[in-house]
């Protein structure tokens, strides 16, 4: 392995040109879209500010739907975060060669989705300025958080996960950072150099990096599974109808992987289109991922059907109220749209080989993201809307605050990604080098 790009030729040189080219300069469209997304984010922050200063009541949550879009988004984004770690870790551990151009894009999704998702439990607090009471710290009142509460588990899990996934993103970045340092001048070079924490590319360093990455991949896999299980416990540990379910943990994990793959495919499409990386993000990557998506689509169907079948067959009246609301009540349009998005569209478009093209893969991924968001919505809202005593039933309607914040988080995702792709090579150059050298 060499460090100087100038001495390279062939594919090694081209990858550097292709991958590092987007890092240079700021086009008009880049700035325009960055401004647009920033505006949305600023608007969302304003909405949040209103909520803090005027009271949480400016949101649409109400009795009995005490949890609304914030928790829907929380679960959704934590699910999206499974794109990276889980997919890249699985592929890394199984040493799937085609993974290499995909992993960094996936890992970056994880970190940003977690940052966004992790904000929602805070946004949703009635008194967010006291959030630190959830953190165990010694105090003279001798008060501790309640470790029996799934919310505390949640916080622990998410902290662990975000720490792990930042490391997991960072480790494979180090060689590239060193290279970036050598290829740039002035303060940029110094920053990249600092971030590369003294990487020289010695054998010892490569050896350590390999070991660290293997270890992290194994650990992050376990953490990722546990995180979404714990997220599911927020619901399944309570006795609310259709939340109190034993399959929620694997159901949530499967759903998370499902939506994560869809998000990854979409991001790859964007990179391919906007950064002209078609040479690296090749159809085979999309086809391979779409097969995974199809698999998860069936797994999702299996879980979802199990969930609804058992409730329907059991015919327990409190649960049936929620079931009816979902399947043929006021939430039925969302429900059937979810079934279409999560099952019918991907199953038909991806299951029939003739129909499976890059275009239909993109359509399926969009459908799955919509469908999975709806699934979270349908898990959170109808249950709360139809609690055990009919006298306390009530509807839910999101206010402009929740909608703004929701929109803002999608904008934030795009913005984070744009900035990331402007600063760091979105494809792991050294992994690609390895690949080319090996072939």
């Amino acid at each position: 392995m060499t460090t100087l790009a100038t001495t390279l030729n062939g594919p090694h040189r081209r990858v550097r040109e292709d991958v590092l080219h987007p890092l240079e300069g700021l086009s008009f469209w880049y700035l325009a879209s960055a401004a647009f997304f920033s505006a949305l984010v600023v608007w969302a922050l304003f909405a949040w500010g209103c909520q803090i200063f005027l009271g949480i009541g400016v949101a649409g949550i109400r009795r009995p739907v005490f949890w609304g879009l914030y928790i829907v988004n929380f679960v959704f984004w934590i699910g999206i975060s499974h794109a990276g770690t889980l997919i890249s870790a699985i592929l890394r551990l199984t040493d799937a060669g085609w993974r290499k151009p995909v992993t960094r894009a996936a890992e970056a999704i994880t970190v940003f989705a977690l940052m966004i998702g992790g904000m929602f439990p805070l946004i949703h607090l009635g008194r967010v300025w006291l959030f630190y009471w959830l953190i165990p710290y010694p105090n003279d009142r001798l008060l501790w958080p309640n470790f029996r509460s799934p919310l505390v588990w949640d916080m622990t899990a998410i902290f662990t996960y975000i720490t792990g996934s930042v490391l997991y993103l960072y480790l494979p970045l180090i060689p590239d950072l060193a290279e970036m340092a050598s290829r740039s001048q002035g303060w940029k070079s110094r920053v990249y150099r600092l971030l590369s924490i003294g990487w020289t590319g010695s054998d010892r360093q490569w050896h350590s990096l390999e070991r660290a990455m293997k270890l992290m991949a194994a650990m992050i896999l376990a953490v990722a599974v546990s995180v979404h299980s714990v997220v599911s416990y927020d619901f399944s540990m309570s006795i609310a109808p259709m939340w109190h379910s034993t399959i929620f943990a694997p159901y949530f994990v499967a759903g998370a992987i499902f939506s994560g793959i869809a998000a990854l495919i979409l991001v790859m499409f964007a990179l391919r289109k906007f950064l002209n990386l078609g040479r690296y993000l090749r159809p085979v990557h999309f086809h391979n991922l779409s097969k995974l998506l199809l698999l998860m689509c069936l797994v999702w169907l299996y879980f979802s059907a199990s969930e609804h079948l058992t409730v329907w067959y059991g015919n327990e009246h409190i649960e049936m109220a929620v079931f009816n609301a979902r399947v043929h009540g006021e939430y039925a349009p969302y429900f059937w749209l979810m079934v279409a998005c999560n099952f019918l569209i991907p199953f038909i478009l991806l299951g029939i080989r003739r129909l499976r093209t890059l275009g239909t893969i993109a359509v399926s991924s969009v459908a799955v993201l919509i469908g999975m968001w709806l699934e979270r919505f349908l898990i959170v809202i109808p249950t709360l809307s139809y609690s055990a005593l009919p006298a306390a039933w009530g509807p839910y309607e999101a206010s402009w605050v929740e909608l703004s914040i929701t929109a803002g988080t999608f904008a934030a995702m795009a913005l984070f990604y744009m900035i990331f792709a402007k600063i760091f090579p979105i494809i792991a150059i050294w992994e690609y080098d390895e690949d080319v050298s090996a072939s």
Partner: protein
Amino acid sequence: MSEQLVPVSEIQSTDDNVPRWGMAIDLDRCTGCEACVVACHVENNIPVATEDEAAMGRSSHWIRIDRYYEGTFPDIKVKYRPVLCQQCDDAPCEPVCPVYATYQNAEGLNVQVYNRCVGTRYCANNCPYQVRVFNWFDPEWPEPLELQLNPDVSVRPGGVMEKCTFCVQRIQRGKLDAQAEDRKVGDGDIQPACVQGCPAEAMAFGDLTDPESKVSQWAGVGRSTQLLGELGTKPKVFYLEKSD
């Protein structure tokens, strides 16, 4: 409604001298007149929800009358009952609070600590009775309405969960009064506002560990049931069903 799953005699306190507060409501006496609802508002500084807020489902009632029509005209009946915090022995709201803002104290009260609450609202989701009330905003009383506020009860800020306390301020005052006069708290000395006001005398409050107390006597009769008792929440509010 479900059978009474926890016999009154099973409600034990840790210490002989510590009561376990409970309530019994005789639905055969109750007329659904809502005097308890207003009594509770007056006593507990519960903010008034405006029409707009009420339309959003943000009415604050610590006690409410659930009513359902049964049958069709002319053989129609209405089933109604006052529903307040059931002060469950195995309260589903308690374990889920991440900051211990709600917990069971030694006297069997399901305590809500306002100043500790950060407002996750998890407890309200997990309460099958939906008796928890959230403060969506800081409460306001146009002058001089605030002169009526009960100084024995805090005014809860926005972002905080609240609910029926069994009028814990009256319990504390009652205990301190008894302590000052060097006597024990007698049955009926302490009455929550709803119980005291009830025109049909349909509510009884007292120590469930004392077999002689009015509430134990009432809760022990055959008509006694618990609301959603099958969920295993072990409510300490007993309903004496209507019967001919």
